[in-house]
């Protein structure tokens, strides 16, 4: 099965995969700064280097931590809370 073989190949070389991903991410940020035309930007902030990278990362953290905080306010209940399923 080609999908399984591919997954297991990637898992076997996990360290290399992580390194390659890291390099690609760095290239993306640098490439965006040097090569991409910012004419379509809507705000000044978007001209900063790595603006959208930071935006994505911070958005991700915000979503995780704010949601977890909200959930622990008493929103999350045991599965038998309603007693009917």
């Amino acid at each position, binding site marked *: 099965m080609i999908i399984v073989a591919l997954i297991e190949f990637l898992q076997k070389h996990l360290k290399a995969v992580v390194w390659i991903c890291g390099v690609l991410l760095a290239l993306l940020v640098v490439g965006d700064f040097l090569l991409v*035309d910012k004419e379509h930007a809507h705000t000044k902030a978007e001209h900063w280097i790595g603006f959208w990278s930071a935006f*994505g990362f911070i958005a991700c953290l915000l979503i*995780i931590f704010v949601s977890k905080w909200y959930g622990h306010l008493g929103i999350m*209940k045991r599965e038998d809370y309603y007693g009917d399923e």
Partner: protein
Amino acid sequence: MAMSELWIHPSVILLAGAALVPFVRGKARSALLLLIPLLAFARIASLDHGTFGTLQFLDWKLTFGRVDRLSQVFGYIMGLMCVLGSLYGMHVKRTADHSAAWCYVAGSLGVIYAGDYLVLFLFWELMAFSSVFLIWLRGSKASLGIGYRYLLVHVLGGLSLLGGIILRYQATGGDYSFGLVDVANPDLSTWLILIGFILNAAVPPFHGWLPDAYSGATVTGSVFLCAFTTKTAIYALCRGFAGMDILVPLGVIMAIYGVVYAVLENDSRKLLAYHIISQVGYMVAGVGIGTQLAINGACAHAFAHILYKGLLFMGTGSVLMMTGKSKFTELGGLYKKMPWAFAFTLIGGLSISAFPLFSGFVSKSMIVSAGFEEHKNTWAFLLMLASAGTFLHTGLKVPYFIWFGKNNCSKETWDLAKDPPWNMIAAMAIMSFFCIFIGCYTPYLYQMLPNQPVAYHPYTAYHVSETLQILLFTAVGFFLFLKKLVPTPTISMDVDWLYRMTGRGVRWIATRPLQAADEWVCEVYRFCGMAWLTVSAKTSAAFDWNVIDGVVDGLARTVRSTGDRLRHLQSAQLQVNIFSAVAVLVVLLLGVVYSLR
């Protein structure tokens, strides 16, 4: 009744199919399950623009067939989804599943082609009353309750809609045509109709029914449910409420709300259901922005959404069907066992996350761009934030915690897990094809959009770079904080708490104080009634004994047998009664349409 020329409504094909399918068996049924949706889809694709299927009914002129660009883009995708959903569910032996699904699609198409509020309302209710069977047919105790809650909420929404229609009819001096309302000067009727629509679009606080129902329905039922109700509502909003300002903040709230609950969710299908709220939020915001680009975006996103969300429900549904499990805490590590289901779900996940070359990329960005163009920057940035959450959950959390991560499978689950039957694989493969095709070849979708020409170009260097940065750095966050995201065996309270708990309150009142009062009244009645009866019986005994005996005996027998029959009718399951009612409705509809000829 007057009639117009012969015009076959696509819904008629599906309703006829729904009536026919219980009588066909074996290979012929499999053929029918493909043929009927294909015929309906072909009929939709062949429709000419114009107004058809008008019917004079008493004082009203009803319009069943308003065909224009807006109705066609929605009709087309509903027809396509019906074909693929039916293919996915082809192995299901019970015919009620197919009949209910087709009646439901017929309702959706009926709304889409309706030219006036009366026809719209008729089909709106057909949708609610047929789709509830997709939940009940799951057959569990929980699904029974879920179905009733679903129906209750939708009946309320329907009443609001009907109330609005009647008020509008009165206020305008008899206008019941369905078109753009005066969104700048809304009156009570506008708000009531809007509530009816946004309840079906699952706009908070009217959204509680959606995660409840879509996680509790049958495997194939959810595939249908996730496509039709909310997107038909989006159609209705595009038609009637384009440019209504309040929809922008409501849509953005939806987009974020769904994302927040998805973090907490442990049931894979419920997580996807919360992401429907999130994604439909983009469309609602698009309708609120209301410019040509925004409406195009809402339509394009509805189109793309139906396909990738259907695909995601198919993928997680196949896990549920094969293993009987849908919770992350009971799954994990299944990539070896269900590789195809994984691959297709991943394609759905990349599409909903709006990765370049996948369908979401060319549709979602239209709405966000329209927001920036209208200088609604804050709202647009919040929509961008929500899109990070979309990738976080649907693109990463769902695949990771089902197919990778810690293996939480019991031995039984693990042994049962394997890729689903060929028809399900085929349906997922075709869905995947469309998700990628739409993303790669934009004219296919853009040529169908209502406002032409479409001058939007998604594949600019800036947009591609911006999207990749957001998504890939979200992935970094996901893997760094993986431990935070490990699902827990919990459920999350949502607005359904209100009616589940108030319902419980009503039940308590009914069982405690009311029942006590009832018993007391019974006691009083028995005491007084019996005393009176004893006296009167004595005085009339002789007369009774001799004269009326024969008559009364006969009467008593009749009463008892009638009572018995009534009692049985009452104790029969309410679903059976509702089913009969829906069946009658379908027959009536068929009759009406037949009389059109």
